[in-house]
């Protein structure tokens, strides 16, 4: 266990699927040689294939204290990059529409907005994902070179580029497939939770740029933090695939809104827009209690009452959503 643990909560009811977080992260961290297929932050449509493709069905994580087998995703699972032939079309008189080359066959969020059917109604929602900076990281345990470590001062999981030899056991071990291989450097890479920004008191780039204001960041062990309140006090945020056993420190407020258009007068669970089974698949059985709790808060607010929880989830300003404590983390790391 680290002295402190930075955590993130994402309210999936507020995600627009705009990918601004993805681009913020990409521009800051993975606009380098060998990183074209890497999105340390990605947003995928659910239900859907995910990024990399089928990551949720290819193993990894822990079971009964043992790492579980998995495989290395191929480049096509991430989506091979393509360029647009502006030169030919715009300047060489070919007179055809601008085309992608090579012909795209896959990509992150390739099945955008496809979703699935619930009866006759289509449904989908967006799932933003970063490294979960797990309490019991499978990637760390899988590395024979101790190249991955969890920072004692703030719980952020980082990968030492000097020690890494590109064996990629970590990629297989991570049940969320949030470690990526850079073939140019011959080393693996991952989300660093923007620790250089946090150390300066700035929130993560993905959170700072999010127009939907759906991200909350702070120390999970700080009783004054929004993440602490949402996870431990109001208990409305859950980790993704908790059964994978890694103890994620990224949590999600499950999507339950808007209600189905035909369900006037019914509770969300009586006539859900999103099939409950699918939410249970992602977040575990506890998701049902959370939806009931959130609906009750919503009903109270709609009837003129007040809801501290909903006010917190609205998160009007950065001070409400983010509690970055660089001094606390650094001082305690020194004396710890």
């Amino acid at each position, binding site marked *: 266990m680290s002295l402190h643990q930075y955590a993130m909560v994402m309210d999936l009811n507020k995600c627009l699927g705009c990918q601004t977080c993805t681009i913020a992260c990409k521009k800051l961290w993975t606009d*380098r*040689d060998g990183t*074209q297929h890497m999105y340390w932050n990605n947003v995928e449509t659910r239900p859907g294939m995910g990024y990399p493709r089928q990551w949720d069905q290819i193993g990894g994580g822990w079971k009964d204290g043992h790492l*579980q087998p998995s495989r290395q*995703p191929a480049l096509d699972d991430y989506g091979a990059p393509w360029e647009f032939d502006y030169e030919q079309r715009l300047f060489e008189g070919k007179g055809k529409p601008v085309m992608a080359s090579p012909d795209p066959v896959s990509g992150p969020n390739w099945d955008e907005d496809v979703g699935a059917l619930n009866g006759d109604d289509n449904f989908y929602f967006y799932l933003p994902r970063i490294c979960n900076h797990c309490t019991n990281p499978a990637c760390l345990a899988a590395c024979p070179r101790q190249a991955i470590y969890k920072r004692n001062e703030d719980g952020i999981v980082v990968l030492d580029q000097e020690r890494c030899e590109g064996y990629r056991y970590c990629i297989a071990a991570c049940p969320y497939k949030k470690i990526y291989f850079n073939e*140019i450097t011959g080393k693996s890479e991952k989300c660093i939770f923007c620790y250089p920004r946090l150390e300066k008191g700035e929130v993560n780039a993905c959170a700072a740029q999010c127009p939907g204001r759906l991200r909350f960041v702070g120390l999970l062990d700080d009783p004054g933090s929004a993440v602490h309140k949402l996870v431990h006090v109001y208990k409305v945020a859950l980790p993704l695939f908790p059964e994978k056993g890694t103890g994620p420190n990224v949590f999600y407020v499950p999507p339950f809104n808007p209600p189905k258009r035909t369900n006037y007068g019914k509770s969300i669970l009586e006539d859900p827009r999103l099939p409950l089974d699918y939410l249970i698949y992602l977040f575990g059985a506890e998701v049902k209690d959370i939806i009931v709790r959130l609906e009750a808060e919503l009903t109270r607010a709609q009837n003129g009452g007040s809801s501290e929880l909903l006010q917190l989830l609205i998160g009007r300003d950065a001070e409400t959503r983010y509690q970055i404590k660089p001094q606390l983390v650094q001082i305690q790391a020194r004396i710890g």
Partner: protein
Amino acid sequence: MRTISKIVAVLCCSLLALVCGGITSEAQQKDVKAAAAIPAGLALKVAPASSRAAALLEPLAADWTNFPTQRVALNRTPRLYDTEAPSDPEIPFVDVRLARAEGKLLVNMTWHDPTRDAAEIAKLPAAPTEGRAHKELTEATDRFFDSAAVMFPAHPPENGQWPSLQMGDPGNPVSIYFWSAARGAARMEAEGRGTTRRTGETFPAQAVYREQAWHITLELQDVPAGFPLAFAVWNGSQQDRDGRKYFTTWLKLE
């Protein structure tokens, strides 16, 4: 549990090395006509060359026919990790020829490998990425490359204390000359498993893949007679990397 399974695997590996090291199986014996197998711990012949070192660097140079081919049995590392898929032995031996020329030890290795796992990977550009329009691309995320290595004790062994075959011991390091079919030659050092460190040094090496076999020559700093050395081969198509490989026991130079 994982630590225990690692320890068990390491013990099995050491035992396997003791039992099988240098001894070819019955099936392999049929192939051993031109070359004699080297029993564990015995010496490899090394002869002075009349050719220049540069001429011998070509793995298929005619001059190499003047040197005896010595067949060394390869052992397959047992399963090391909970998550590792089983992998059958596919490369039973490596043929080695050794020559001394111009103060260098030239090591010629040939092994059968029906799958050529090699690539030309773009070098990381020296110029910073900021403001550079073109970025080199990762072409694959799930491939591993054929490789080989020669390992020596980093220092002359004292009182017959050879370092551990598993990348040396703390205080008794090894020096490793590593060649990869994608990334070329690199010298490494290690003081135990998981401690391999790239020195930043390279060394002359050439490789040819012909008729389902790799032929490589490594030009190394010479070492005195009686010095221990060991060989390793990685098969990319078997996802070999790290300790997942083929290895010989410690042998020694005649």
